[in-house]
């Protein structure tokens, strides 16, 4: 019964877009007739390069005769007029303008000689007779080249004349109707009001309208009712949630790292920034600039720094044994891909390995753009909600006020501080930094890098219970003490100095071994007499995240805990929120000095056993950046003065800035015994400091960029400077060296040819199911020819002229008549335009995964509309998060109460374990930038909507609402339930089906054939009624129309 169709046939039929093929056929027919009313260019030519010729050359010829010199055959290049008309290797020019007959291109295309035939048969892309005809005509007409349309800045085209000017509400309609006129089609009538309000609600806020909202719209018979509805929806805070989600696909947002460990990350501040940016209609050009370079703006706000999280949404690989640089470069490629697809609307990935085969982007171009993004550190900074920011300010003000009070009450404070400064002038013995090996440490899978200053930086896999060992590269003559410095680094969580999520660490035990330089294997442990540190927190139990399942009481505390030979105790460095991420130091003083005639080679062992049991989670409590030094002087101690204060003290008092002066006073006051009360008040204030959250962001750091051969990070070629590809808008004229900010501003320049087009095309795609060009991620020369090229350009220009305002763009589209059409597909329309690219009818499109879920929750009356905050964990099958379904055990702390029913935007997204219902409905998992989702229709979707526990919750809740608020008669109740799901009222036939179902179920439940309490979750007499209404509600929630924008 099923006929087989070969893959080749399928592939052939796909070589052109449907609409394109149709146009081609029409054009070929027109050319064959030699007459007709086809579109002609201003020059009177029938064939136009960009519209008709380039798609053929690009698909069939450019692979060997295009921009990529390394792939070029026969020294022939067909993508520029100059090359195509110059003699090729064969000696003849491929194209002789005006003379198709003698042009080698046509001779080769039409020859019967298999050896000479082009394209070669083995490529499997023969020219069709229609295509050959087009090439012939084009050459005969003079072979005029045009630049690829999308690489020329859009210009506002004239609004065309149409058959029915009264149908034109705004120029969008003129462009649509003009094309319909040409095709002999008429637009569909306007959809009815219930359809319109449901369509608008789903499109603009991603939620269905309530019955009251529908009734209000139906009752509003004043002029402008529709426009008022649009205003209300655009003003709704849910607008940002709906459209923010679309951008989050492009931003490959997820709540976890990806790869094997796929650890949770906490980046919801970025997600909320996106939602907020849409809600306040941040102009799209600024929206892009802040995401690429918000940190480089003058005095950037927290929000502007958070925005750079866009680039940090790349995956992170921390599986054991990785080379962190390899995956940093992978992340860079991912960022380039995201900028290409999301901002430029170009697929630039190809140029990562070689010059692009189809588009004029060279291998060097790619790395010049790469260089803009490469000079960064991968930072994670503390971020605060507005309330927390306010609290933080209050605390800082409070501290300043108390300190000011101390100075007022003690007029001699300056003299006292000066004498204190004198007393602490001596920073202690002189220390020599010990540089060590890093390789001996490989056994744990964590990588260490020896930095220039002799410090070691940990990265990659983070074991939770391990000992790291480092042996000195050079011997020292004699040593009496070892200093361990803990340092900040932008690559560490909250800058470190540790690798825990708070940037902290714990030192379980510290051991030193010494060997004579001439007998390095004869290592002996050195006895440590005592240890000192500049921070000695009181004993505190470990946080639950560090549970090692040993049931022992494990604690952190003063430095003595690092030399007590107890596995349960460790030196901790937590000085509380707001003050914990600072450099620290400890000194371990030997029982007696160690020396050997050949010199002493030291080995340091850092036992770090205060992490949790699960190294596949964020449970490490490891060192981040640290440095060893040694001193010969006996009785060395840790300098009690914090590093920042020591640095301030090094500046002469009169030269100190306010910040430095405050640092000195802030430490000095803690040394004055009679100020204890004030000091305690300040400590109490700091205790109220908010914990805040962390956000992955960018921080500028110069880094040399090289072109990478074949994109291999191990094969750096010549260094490249940041720069702009020549085929797009001209580079900025400023003389200053361009920065990432320059790059961002160049991307959204008024002359940028693809940026605005890509943005409006994506918006159009969201409304109509397909973009004006269907290849939203690629406006390059391989893209589909737009269905309405002039409309695309008009929208792009209008978008920019109206200040890149997305809300304005939305208003323009939804207020057009084109948008308001009914979506019924008559047999005639289906025949003429099966894919609705001409828009003689409205779009009928299944809603996105998140909207499907939100519709269920809203119709069932369960939706919790809270906006923003950490992601939530609605119910999900527990086994998914445990091996062997997951690689490692993952936390899925199921949310309680209404948080289970937050919008799907807030569902926690593990990249490796996508939330099943959202995955079934084609939500991308954030592995890479997605600017166009699939829209599948599968049995697994049916199973999810029928059987997922949340679906039953929604059905039960809807049944309860029906019985409570749906009126007293069955008819009223059916209408109520129906309208909650579909906005419109049911037809008599539909009522009949539902009513029959309801009665049959009621009978079965009444007869005891089925258990009503189990289904309805309601006990007692009303159980049967609840249960039969639950069945009806479940049916309504499963209708195709319920999950479709009609």
């Amino acid at each position, binding site marked *: 019964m*099923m*006929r087989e*169709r070969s*893959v080749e046939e399928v*592939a052939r039929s796909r070589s052109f*877009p*449907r609409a394109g093929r149709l146009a081609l056929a029409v054009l070929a027919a027109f050319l064959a007739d030699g007459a007709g009313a086809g579109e002609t260019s201003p020059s009177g030519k029938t064939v136009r390069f960009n519209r008709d010729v380039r798609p053929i050359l690009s698909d069939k010829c450019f692979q060997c005769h295009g921009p990529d010199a390394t792939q070029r055959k026969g020294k022939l290049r067909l993508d520029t007029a100059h090359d195509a008309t110059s003699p090729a290797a064969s000696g003849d020019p491929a194209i002789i303008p005006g003379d198709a007959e003698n042009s080698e291109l046509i001779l080769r295309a039409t020859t019967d000689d298999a050896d000479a035939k082009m394209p070669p048969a083995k490529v499997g892309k023969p020219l069709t007779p229609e295509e050959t005809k087009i090439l012939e005509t084009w050459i005969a007409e003079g072979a005029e080249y045009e630049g690829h349309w999308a690489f020329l800045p859009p210009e506002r085209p004239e609004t065309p004349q149409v058959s029915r000017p009264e149908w034109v509400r705004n120029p969008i309609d003129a462009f649509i109707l003009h094309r319909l006129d040409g095709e002999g089609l008429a637009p569909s009538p306007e959809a009815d009001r219930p359809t319109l309000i449901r369509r608008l609600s789903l499109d603009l806020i991603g939620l269905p309208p309530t019955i009251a909202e529908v009734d209000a719209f139906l009752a509003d018979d004043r002029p402008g009712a529709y426009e008022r509805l649009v205003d209300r929806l655009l003003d709704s805070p849910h607008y940002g949630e709906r459209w923010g989600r679309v951008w989050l696909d492009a931003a490959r947002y997820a709540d976890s790292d990806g790869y094997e460990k796929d650890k949770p990350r906490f980046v919801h501040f970025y997600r909320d920034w996106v939602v907020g940016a849409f809600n306040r209609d941040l102009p799209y050009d600024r929206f892009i600039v802040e995401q690429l370079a918000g940190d480089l703006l003058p005095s950037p706000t927290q929000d502007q720094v958070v925005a750079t999280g866009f680039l940090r949404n790349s995956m992170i690989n921390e*599986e*054991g*044994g990785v080379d962190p640089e390899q995956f940093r470069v992978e992340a860079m490629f991912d960022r380039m891909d995201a900028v290409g697809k999301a901002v430029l609307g170009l697929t630039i990935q190809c140029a990562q390995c070689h010059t692009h*085969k189809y588009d004029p982007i060279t291998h060097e171009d790619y790395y010049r753009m790469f260089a803009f993004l490469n000079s960064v550190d991968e930072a994670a900074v503390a971020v605060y909600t507005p309330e927390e920011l306010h609290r933080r300010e209050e605390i800082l003000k409070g501290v300043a006020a108390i300190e000011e009070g101390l100075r007022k009450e003690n007029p001699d404070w300056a003299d006292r501080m000066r004498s204190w400064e004198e007393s602490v002038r001596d920073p202690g013995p002189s220390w020599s930094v010990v540089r060590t090996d890093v390789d001996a440490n490989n056994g744990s899978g964590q990588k260490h890098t020896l930095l220039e200053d002799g410090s070691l930086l940990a990265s990659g896999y983070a074991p939770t219970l391990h000992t790291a060992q480092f042996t000195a590269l050079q011997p020292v003559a004699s040593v009496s003490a070892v200093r361990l410095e803990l340092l900040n680094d932008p690559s560490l969580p909250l800058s470190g100095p540790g690798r825990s999520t708070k940037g902290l660490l714990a030192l379980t035990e510290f051991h030193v071994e010494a060997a004579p330089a001439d007998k390095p294997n004869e290592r002996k442990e050195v006895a440590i007499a005592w240890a000192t540190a500049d921070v000695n927190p009181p004993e505190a139990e470990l946080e639950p995240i560090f549970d090692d399942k040993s049931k022992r009481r494990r604690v952190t505390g003063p430095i003595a805990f690092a030399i007590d030979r107890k596995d349960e105790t460790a030196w901790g460095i937590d000085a509380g929120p707001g003050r914990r991420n600072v450099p620290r130091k400890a000194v371990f003083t030997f029982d007696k000095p160690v020396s050997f005639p050949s010199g002493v080679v030291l080995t340091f062992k850092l036992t770090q056993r205060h992490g949790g049991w699960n190294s596949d989670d964020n449970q490490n409590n490891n060192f981040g950046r640290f440095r060893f030094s040694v001193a010969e002087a006996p009785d060395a101690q840790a300098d009690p003065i914090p590093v920042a204060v020591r640095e301030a003290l090094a500046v002469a008092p009169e030269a100190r800035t306010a910040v430095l002066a405050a640092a000195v006073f802030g430490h000095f006051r803690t040394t004055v015994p009679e100020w204890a009360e004030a000091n305690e008040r300040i400590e109490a204030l700091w205790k109220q400091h908010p914990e805040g959250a962390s956000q992955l962001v960018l921080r500028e750091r110069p880094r040399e960029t090289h072109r990478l051969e074949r994109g291999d990070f191990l094969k750096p070629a010549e260094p490249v400077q940041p720069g702009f590809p020549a085929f797009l808008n001209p580079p900025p004229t400023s003389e200053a060296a361009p920065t990432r900010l320059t790059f961002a501003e160049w991307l959204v320049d008024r002359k940028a040819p693809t940026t605005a087009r890509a943005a409006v095309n994506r918006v159009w795609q969201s409304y109509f*199911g397909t973009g004006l060009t*269907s*290849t939203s*991620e690629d406006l390059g020369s391989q*893209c589909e020819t737009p269905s309405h090229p002039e409309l695309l350009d008009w929208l792009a220009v209008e978008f920019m002229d109206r200040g890149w305002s997305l809300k304005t763009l939305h208003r323009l589209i939804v207020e057009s008549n084109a948008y308001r059409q009914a*979506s*019924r*597909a*008559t*047999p005639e329309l*289906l*025949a003429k335009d*099966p894919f609705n690219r001409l828009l003689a009818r409205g779009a*009928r499109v*299944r809603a996105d995964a998140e909207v499907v879920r939100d519709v269920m929750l809203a119709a069932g009356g369960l939706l919790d509309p809270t906006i923003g905050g950490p992601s939530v964990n609605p119910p999900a*099958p527990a086994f998914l998060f445990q*091996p*062997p379904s997951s*690689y490692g055990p993952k936390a899925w702390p199921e949310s309680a109460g209404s948080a289970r029913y937050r919008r799907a935007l807030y569902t926690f997204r593990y990249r490796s374990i*996508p939330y099943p219902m959202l995955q079934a409905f084609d939500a*991308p998992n954030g*592995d890479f930038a997605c600017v*166009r*989702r*699939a829209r*599948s*229709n*599968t*049995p697994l979707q*049916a*199973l999810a909507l*029928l*059987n*997922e526990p949340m*679906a039953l919750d929604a059905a039960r809740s809807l049944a309860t609402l029906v019985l409570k608020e749906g009126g007293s008669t069955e008819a009223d109740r059916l209408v109520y339930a129906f309208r909650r799901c579909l906005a419109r009222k049911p037809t008599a*036939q*539909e009522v009949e*089906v539902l009513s029959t*179902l309801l009665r049959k179920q009621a009978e079965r439940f009444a007869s005891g054939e*089925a258990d009503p309490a*189990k289904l309805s979750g309601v006990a007692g007499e009303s159980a049967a009624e609840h*249960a039969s209404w639950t*069945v009806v509600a*479940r049916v309504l929630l*499963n*209708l*195709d*129309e319920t999950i479709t924008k*009609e």
Partner: protein
Amino acid sequence: MNCQDRLHRGHDPLDVSRRWFLGQCGVGLGAMAFRELLAADARAGSPTASGPMAVKAPHFPPKVKRVIFLFMAGGPSHLEMFDSKPQLAKFDGTLPPAELLKGYRAAFINPDAKLLGPKFEFGRHGQSGTELSELLPHLARVVDDVTVVKGMSTDAFNHAPGQIMMSTGSMIFGRPSLGAWTCYGLGSEANDLPGFVVFSTGKKGPSGGNSNWGSGFLPTVYQGVQFRTGGDPVLYLSNPEGVDRQVQRDSLDAIHSLDAQRLEVMGDPEIATRINSYETAFQMQMSAPDVMDLSREPQHVLDMYGVEPGKGSFAGTCLLARRLLERGVRFVEIFHEAWDQHGNLTADLKNNCGETDQACAALVQDLKQRGMLEDTLVVWGGEFGRTPMVQGGSDGRDHHPNAFTMWMAGGGLKPGISHGETDDLGFSVARDKVHVHDLNATILHLLGFDHTRLNYRFQGRDFRLTDVHGRVVNEILA
């Protein structure tokens, strides 16, 4: 599972849904709607009625029609199981030659790690005299039906990228998996089961996660569907609490009826597809538990595989794989993540082989007895091999991409041969290297495809499983 691309270049969703509907939808719709859809199909230039999963003919007559991929995730040691290296034993405890390590990157071990001799004895088996270690007594019984490939190599030496490389032919996430490509090319003969079924039976899930069976930019219908051996085999397969089969049937009838009414009004073929999806889901609710019910297998078959309570789920899963293939499923993949022996090599391998060897051999034997082996392909292997050098003491090996072993069995292959050879230490391939791309090209060849022509247009160019690489390993083909 990802950003998909069914809209691209003529692959329109309406098109897909219409075909699906016409090919598989057995529901009674209004004649008008049906005529419309038929007419639309004819206009679209397609002579056939077929859904995205309908059976399609490959480029040339295939040798095999279905695949079971036994993915031994973690990196099984070729040196302990397949690749006998007496010289490695001889040089145990010494440093490898410096020139061997030039430019070599290891995940964990130091550059100065010493060689570690093989931990198990090897012997020759079957008429073919194929060498296998004592760890694989069961495979030894069927070794004359097996083609051993000893010259495998890959590009990645970390798990997630290595697995994604093996599964999708690229280390970059987002490409379609081998199973997805297979279903894209061939469709599936199973109407009420997914065409591509995935199990995970190890101690952990695979490092590469869901992307190992993703559809990348292919339409999402081609992605693997995870089955479980316990509980619901497919997520949300069971009716919710209180919904019995009758309620489910009545509900589906009502949904069907209301959707059909809407189809009459709106004329959108997507509604017909939706009706069909619900019917298929209903069918699957019966067929999936049925296929998963091993109690229907006779005792001697259970014994052959070694299915017994408490012996791990791998054996039972191999048997399930055979049952799924019998019902027309195109591609079954079993991930057994257990082979990452940085330490405890000897005991872990004994244990792993104890859990898997018998079932793997039984699968080959069972398929052969049923006459299925001649048009089925069984593939066994992991993402890379392990170093000849020791890691951590004397009982562990690190990741090693340069050389490793896989085996295959089934139609179109020369059975009972070992192809390729590594050097004396098992470090590099000395003869007949088979890169992952070559393996993929060969598998596609067996399925009837020219790997350079099984393409999908995405982001402005034709993508394929083997990218710009791949050579069919003709030497192992019958």
